[in-house]
């Protein structure tokens, strides 16, 4: 057991899974000698050699395209997009082949692969480096989309993603990379994909979030609990797709109120899907509209304005109050 940050925890998962399974290959830009621009793949090259840790040329589509080929041959490539902002260059490959091969061959050929990518804002990065677009991948049938929120679940979910028989987009909230540490057991730990986690039980309002937004979310809940004594249930989605709405719905049938916190632009985002699912299954239990506290439908501003645009604890608290007061 060691106190690790998310970078170290993900690195641990990669080390252990590569050691476990010779079919696991790591590839991407600067993942080898440099250990990744965020140091996620540090030490892998030294331990597993250039035969299993590939510094690739600068081409996102080819990283995914060749990984698809490797996966078809029975390997389990874990590839890195340096930033999610560059991943749209591989959407063609991903959409046309990775997500479909199982369906089009009725399972005869499959593409077990993981695409890791840092996403989201809050680190004063250059343009194209701060977007949050999990919904884009989540809307593709055949793709799994996973977003850890802390070191421990990042490690356990990545292990599950690598072992999953299907392509997984593993979106790492870079704002949380080094923001805090958690105890992460040395021994293998695996969390199932497709399951949300109730991180705090409560009775009066359900608060749903994922990724980097979990921190302001939890903070806001504590604040409101302290101020008003409200009992708030908090759910961490962990997997965006396939979305575990059962856990959310079950919670809302008990609390009657729900706030969803999302970093991405509001429209056509994940919080809209959650709202729709609650509407489907818990309509009669709702005492207030589901509140989406989200980013705005504007082009992601450069970091000089970034802070004004990210949901924060104060805004989450305000959304909770509004929902309680409805």
């Amino acid at each position, binding site marked *: 057991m060691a106190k690790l940050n998310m970078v170290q925890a993900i690195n641990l998962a990669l080390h252990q899974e590569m050691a476990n399974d010779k079919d696991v290959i790591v590839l991407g830009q600067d993942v080898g000698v440099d250990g990744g621009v965020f140091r996620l793949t540090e030490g892998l090259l030294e331990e597993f050699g250039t035969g299993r840790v590939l510094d690739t040329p600068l*081409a996102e*589509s080819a990283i*995914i395209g060749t990984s698809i080929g*490797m996966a078809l041959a029975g390997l389990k490539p874990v590839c890195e997009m340096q930033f999610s902002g560059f991943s749209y260059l591989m959407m063609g490959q991903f959409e046309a082949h990775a997500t479909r091969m199982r369906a089009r061959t*009725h399972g005869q050929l499959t593409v077990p692969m993981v695409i890791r990518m840092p996403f989201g804002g809050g680190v004063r990065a250059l343009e194209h480096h701060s977007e949050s677009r999990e919904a884009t991948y989540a809307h593709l049938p055949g793709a799994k989309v996973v977003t850890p929120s802390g070191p421990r679940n990042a490690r356990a979910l990545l292990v599950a993603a690598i072992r999953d028989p299907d392509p997984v987009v593993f979106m790492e909230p870079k704002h949380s990379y080094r923001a805090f540490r958690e105890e992460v057991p040395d021994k293998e730990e695996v969390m199932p*994909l497709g399951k949300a986690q109730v991180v705090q039980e409560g009775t009066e309002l359900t608060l749903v979030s994922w990724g980097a937004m979990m921190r302001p979310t939890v903070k806001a809940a504590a604040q409101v609990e302290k101020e008003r004594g409200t009992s708030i249930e908090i759910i961490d989605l962990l997997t965006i797709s*396939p979305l575990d709405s*059962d856990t959310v719905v079950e919670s809302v049938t008990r609390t009657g109120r729900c706030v969803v916190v999302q970093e991405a632009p509001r429209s056509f985002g994940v919080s809209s899907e959650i709202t729709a699912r609650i509407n489907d299954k818990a309509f009669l239990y709702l005492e207030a509209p589901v509140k989406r506290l989200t980013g705005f439908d504007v082009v992601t501003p450069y970091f000089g304005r970034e802070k004004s645009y990210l949901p924060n604890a104060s805004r989450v608290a305000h959304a909770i109050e509004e929902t309680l007061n409805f």
Partner: protein
Amino acid sequence: MPRKQIAKFSVQHLQILDENGKLDAKLEPKLSEDELLEIYRWMRLARELDERMLKLQRQGRLGTFPPNTGQEAISIPVALAMQDKDWFVGAFRELGGRLVRGEPLTSTLYYYNGWEEGNILPNKDLRIIPTSVVIGCQVEHAVGLAWASRYKGEDSVAVCFIGDGGTSEGDFHEGLNFASAWKAPVVFIVQNNQWAISMPRQSQTASGTIAQKGIAYDIPCLQIDGNDPLAMHVAITEALDRARKGEGPTLIEAVTYRLMMHTTADDPKKYRSEEEEKVAWKKEPLLRFNKYLKDKGFWDDAKEEPLRGEVKAKVEDAVKEFESPKDWQQDDPFKHVFGTEHAVIAEQHKDFLGNVEREADHG
């Protein structure tokens, strides 16, 4: 202005059997009578299936498909030169090669009639990747397969096909660059059939040849007459050999002609002359190969007739099987979204079955 020349390149062309069936004996590969006849038989079968499919399509018994007529001399000798452990990575105009690799005739029929069942091989080890409709993607898959086969110590090669139009896609470039950077055991074959739907080859790219695109990556390249099965045989043998020796990828431009419409939804009269087509028909591969075999004393009209009957019967059997009743389920897609269970999919599956039931009730 005197500048230092730092690199020199050239592109070679290979033709062994010309359009009149005339042989350049110096270049003739050592193929046995059986081997030569095998090529011919597959070419006939592919042609027959293609022609039959066109009729089926016109009769409304088959969906849209891209005919392969005139390009038989490319994928067939290639597939015959490949080993079982090699990977066959097609685009969508390699009918003959697919058959050679062991894909049942019915697969193509199912596929182009809108059934995923056309992608399911009798045996996964046939190592045929399904058709890549999204042009260019397959190039990178082949590189990944090649890399994986080396990683696994399999000594197998990935052979990838693409059209002249496909060479304009970014994935073609990225794939070739990765292949050469990795010295991957892969062979790229461009079926330059002069057209990409309505776009003629010379408008597709300003380069004099497609082969020279290999120079960008220091990939050995060669242009061949793609209607000449002997040239194709020589070129692929050399390329497979190079790959297996660990010397990396090869790019082969096979110059041919798309004799038919792009797909059955296309009308070439809109963009090219019948004159041009007529000239191209004179160069088509079966004609010249037939003459070559006759010249060698391996073939005559008396043998041709039973072969025609044989391939017709094979195609007929396939069509019969294709049109026989199937117990394929409409709800299969729900079973193959993921390899694991998920509540959302399960619930929608139930809804789907509910729809089916309700719609059956209402007639």
